[in-house]
């Protein structure tokens, strides 16, 4: 059998000369091999007697289902003819050492019999698994309240629950050299683009790391523009979102050990849609979408606009507002940029702190930070109260954006825009908008443009971006296709 270089390296690491277990079934030899590979103390080797032959069963005690194992041992310890049949029916045979290694790591147990040149693998795995819980960050009011867990089989089971169709297929790819983890590429055959599938597979196969633990790590490794401020992948922990995107012809990557799945390809608009939008009626859903678009602009531009207006172009502000701004700014000794950055950084620190603290303390910190510090700062004359309002509005707008990745990116983009606004006023804002926009236009996710509904302009996509037309008209194509 041809072994790859990594596999040969591994065999050498274990000081093994051959790649198969002892051909004559010498039990001591085989046991030695296994103990060399697993010098850990949770490897358990139990001696048995099976039909008068010496046998050993090896397994890792931490990941084995004790009950199943006991049953198995009981069954094969009885001294009857049917054991042969039983063993043949219920076990897999192998003589490859590397396969034995993988199966023991999966929690299966290996039965070595004196005189037999193959080992028997019995499935007793019980890797730790979590029960299904409601989603923690992708909250929704009216969608289903279940989220993915860390086991990929359980996640695929959830998806199969949501999509009961023969066309829903999975391709499995192994990544990681030392620490293999399985990435399952889920797609709906017939809806998905062939080029997309092969493109995704290619990008995944290019990863040459030792181990990949998290779906977010995987997503960042296959991202094309890691320096871009805009995220080019979309992760979710909700099966209904994943199922909906599958039905749109997208591909879902399920990474074992990660409770989030990756959806590809994506465009800019997906970061502003939530599953609740489709549960509400057209008018309410459209209002919420418009609110998010406004929040998007406020998050990026509001502090910049404020700084630009009061430093360079005060003529834009109507007179009465200008007088009150002037009054409140007169007490502040700092430049507007400095004031803004201080307030924004304070708010960011409060936000980060609130994540780490347990729940009751975080609410207190929020109140203390928000109200007390803000008010005290205004009274001490360090910041003006209009600045506090601006910063608070910006923060609230950034929390409206449904996707955490995108919201964090937008929060970071704010700062260069503030700096440009304080250097060049409105022109600085315009130039930074141009740079951002051009950058966004140049991104593409697997040959589909990133800024899809806006450029190139696509009339159908507009039905679901800034407003949401009633579902009857939105899914007209599906109806039509099924009527034919």
């Amino acid at each position: 059998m041809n072994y790859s270089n990594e596999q040969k390296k591994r065999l050498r690491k274990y000081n093994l000369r051959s790649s198969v277990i002892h051909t004559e079934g010498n039990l001591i030899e085989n046991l030695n091999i296994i103990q060399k590979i697993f010098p850990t103390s949770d490897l358990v080797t139990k001696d048995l007697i099976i039909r008068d032959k010496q046998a050993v069963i090896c397994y890792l005690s931490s990941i084995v289902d004790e009950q199943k194992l006991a049953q198995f041992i009981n069954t094969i310890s009885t001294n009857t003819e049917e054991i042969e049949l039983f063993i043949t029916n219920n076990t897999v045979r192998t003589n490859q050492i590397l396969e034995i290694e993988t199966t023991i790591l999966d929690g299966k147990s290996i039965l070595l019999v004196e005189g037999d040149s193959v080992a028997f693998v019995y499935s007793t795995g019980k890797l730790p698994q979590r029960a299904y819980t409601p989603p923690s960050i992708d909250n929704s009011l009216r969608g289903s309240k279940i989220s993915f867990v860390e086991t990929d089989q359980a996640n695929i089971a959830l998806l199969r629950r949501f999509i009961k169709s023969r066309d829903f297929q999975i391709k499995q790819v192994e990544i990681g050299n030392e620490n293999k983890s399985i990435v399952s590429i889920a797609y709906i055959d017939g809806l998905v683009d062939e080029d997309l599938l092969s493109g995704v597979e290619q990008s995944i196969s290019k990863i040459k790391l030792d181990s990949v633990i998290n779906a977010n790590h995987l997503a960042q490794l296959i991202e094309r523009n890691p320096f871009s401020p805009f995220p080019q992948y979309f992760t979710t922990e909700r099966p209904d979102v994943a199922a909906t995107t599958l039905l749109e012809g997208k591909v879902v990557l399920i990474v074992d050990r990660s409770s989030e799945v990756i959806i590809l390809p994506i465009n800019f608009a997906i970061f502003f849609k939530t599953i609740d939008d489709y549960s509400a009626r057209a008018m309410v859903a459209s209002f919420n979408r418009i609110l998010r678009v406004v929040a998007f602009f406020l998050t990026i531009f509001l502090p910049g606009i404020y700084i630009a207006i009061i430093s360079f172009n005060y003529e834009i502000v109507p007179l009465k507002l200008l007088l009150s701004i002037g009054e409140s700014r007169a007490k502040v000794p700092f430049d507007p940029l400095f004031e803004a950055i201080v307030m924004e950084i304070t708010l960011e620190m409060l936000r980060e702190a609130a994540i780490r603290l347990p729940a009751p303390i975080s609410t207190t910190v929020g109140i203390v930070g928000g109200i007390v510090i803000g008010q005290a700062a205004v009274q001490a004359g360090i910041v003006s109260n209009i600045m506090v309002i601006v910063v608070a509005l910006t923060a609230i707008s950034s929390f409206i954006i449904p996707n955490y990745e995108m919201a964090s990116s937008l929060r970071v983009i704010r700062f260069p825009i503030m700096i440009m606004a304080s250097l060049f006023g409105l022109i600085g804002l315009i130039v930074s908008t141009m740079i951002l926009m051009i950058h966004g236009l140049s991104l593409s996710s697997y040959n589909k443009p990133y800024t899809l509904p806006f450029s190139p302009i696509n009339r159908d996509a507009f039905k679901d971006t800034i407003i949401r037309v009633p579902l009857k008209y939105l899914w007209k194509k599906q109806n039509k296709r099924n009527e034919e």
Partner: protein
Amino acid sequence: MKNDVRRDSFMIITKSKITQFQFILMIFGIQVGIGMLSLPRELAQKGGTSSWIAILFGGIISTLIGIVFVKFREKAPNLNYIGFFTFYLGKIIGSIVVLFQAMYFLYGGYLALVRATLYIQSYILQETKTYILLVLFLFPTYQLISGGVHLIAKYIEAIFPIAFFTLFMLLFTLKDADINFILPIIKEGWMPIFKTIPLTTTSFLGIELILVYYPYLKSKEKAVKGVIIGNALTTFTYVFVTIICFVIYSPYEIKMTFEPVIDILSVIEFQYVERLDFILFSLFLMIISKTWVTFIWAGMNGLSELFKFRLLPIIIIFLFIIIIILTFIQVPTFTNTTNHLHVLMISGLYITIGIPILLLVGGLIKNRLSKVKIN
């Protein structure tokens, strides 16, 4: 034979993804640029308040020229720029023509950029140095040029709502309008209108760029329709802006303001924002950027195909350094940029009219030559 194949493979464009809508907006976007701001005043100075009719004529002429260009291009739809001219005019003359055109494009792009900088210095940021503003604008320009024509097309498409918004805001100035300023429609007869037609035709310059980006179109068979719609959009915009300026300013006043379009925007006031002209002018910069970026790209594209080098980032930065040095050699002022623009307009007119004639002659000669060869 082998040489031909290699030369051909260099010259055929394979990636053609500019959609019809983007094509229309590109024609519209390149033509509507800095000229729009002072157009009403120039028209009034040359032909009085009835000269807005000349815009319609200019639009028709520009549409016809555009259709002629498209028809010529259809003969060799996938060849790149220099390949097209070589096909028609032979290697030597084709190269010379492309060289001149590339120079013209770069000159035009430089002027548009510098003029926009002047506008900013005059209206918004009075104390900024020219080269700082240039560096500022060269960042997005660099991004667009290294992104290629497809990125430029997407950018133009994305900017279109701003143009629409600016035009819409002009409607708010109409509360001070007096239609008697523009009546009677033909004030001094048709002669002044005819005399203004050269001026209006030159404000439709930008149509010659169709020759450059035609091979990148996705649906080339709809190109003629695209040209008509694009020019119609430009004509409509110019007429709209001109008529609004003419009804707001008295005919004695309009010859006095340099940029009437910005001036009328400065009196719009809402309850929550005044001096809308600052905001709208800043947004308008995005629209002007379409013009200079496309011209500079076309120039660099021509040069890179002519001298067969790839457009590396370092070359683009080198071009930018040249631009900045030029502004030190001759400090741009409104007067000398106006003079340069005049020269540009005239050369643009020669190019736009001269190229179809050249191509026609070249095509005839080629036909004759190939017939001789067969015989």
